[in-house]
């Protein structure tokens, strides 16, 4: 082999060495890029967090859906209840009127009970005067006939009123009064009157017991609120 060939071979060898080094450096760089940078870990982490978020989102969505279901159920229930609530409010208003917590105004009847003016000789005068049970009877009948409010001689009957007989006078909640006794009731006048005038009813019984009964429909009766507790 001549020296020229060796020289030429050396030049090519130099090129080969250079190229090999470049290859080495290129591959080293590439693998370095892959391993040294913790991009992979970062990516993995981000992927994990995305999965986590998605999972959470799904859970929250489910929760939201169930809450919506609850709301819908409550709404339906409320729609059902509204009717019964309305009825309850109406009932409450009626009861308030009865117990005297609110002022009541409206048409009604007025029943006047009076002692019999003439007591035949030899008869017991006690059988000819108005007793507290008579008034009680009238009041009970009026209440039964769905009167909204009742008063005796201007004293309104409340939920815990008492009617007492004290000899010739009668005391309603410690308000004493004498005959004639005017019982006023607010309600449907026709209905109240009819209730009292039933044959064999209250009016007949009272007349049988020698009491003068006078009934009158009133177009408007006003009863005030009963304020505070009355002494009973």
């Amino acid at each position, binding site marked *: *082999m*001549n020296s*020229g*060939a*060796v*020289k*030429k*071979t*050396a*030049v*090519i*060898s*130099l*090129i*080969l*060495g*250079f*190229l*090999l*080094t*470049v*290859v*080495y*450096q*290129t*591959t080293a*760089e*590439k693998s370095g890029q892959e391993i040294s940078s913790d991009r992979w870990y970062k990516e993995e982490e981000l992927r994990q967090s995305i999965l986590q978020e998605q999972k959470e989102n799904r859970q929250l969505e489910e929760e939201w859906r169930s809450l919506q279901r609850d709301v819908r159920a409550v709404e339906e229930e409320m729609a059902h209840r509204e009717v019964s609530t309305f009825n309850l409010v109406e009932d409450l208003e009626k009861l308030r009127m009865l117990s005297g917590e609110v002022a009541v105004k409206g048409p009604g009847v007025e029943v006047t009970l009076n002692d019999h003016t003439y007591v035949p000789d030899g008869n017991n005068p006690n059988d000819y005067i108005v007793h507290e049970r008579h008034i009680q009877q009238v009041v009970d009948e009026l209440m039964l006939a769905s009167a909204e409010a009742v008063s005796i001689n201007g004293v309104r009957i409340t939920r815990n009123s008492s009617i007492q007989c004290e000899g010739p006078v009668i005391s309603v909640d410690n308000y004493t009064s004498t005959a004639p006794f005017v019982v006023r009731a607010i309600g449907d006048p026709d209905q109240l009157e009819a209730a009292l005038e039933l044959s064999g009813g209250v009016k007949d019984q009272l007349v049988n017991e020698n009491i003068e009964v006078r009934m009158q429909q009133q177009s408007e009766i006003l009863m005030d609120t009963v304020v505070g507790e009355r002494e009973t």
Partner: protein
Amino acid sequence: MWLPVVGVLFGVLLGLLTGASVPAAYTAYLLVAVLATVDTLCGGAKAGLQNEFDDALFLSGFLMNLVAALSLTFLGEQLSVDLYLAAVFAFGVRLFRNIAIIRRELITRCKYRKRL
């Protein structure tokens, strides 16, 4: 005789000092260039052993092979077909044939010397 080895070392040193590297997209070109160089070296060694070494053939062969291989790789890249494999295949086959010839030549020389 040691000049080629020194050349390789010098080339490595040059590469390390320049710190040259090739973008990942051009690794195919690099591979083909390396193969062409190795092929040329083996061809040269074979020719030297057979006393058929020719300067013009050696250098022109190296340059032509290199240009052809790189062109093929470029064409392959444009057509998105791995055409550089054709060059790799051709170089590989020739490389092994040359290595075989070198081996045979060396063995015959050893036998020849022993007989002497």
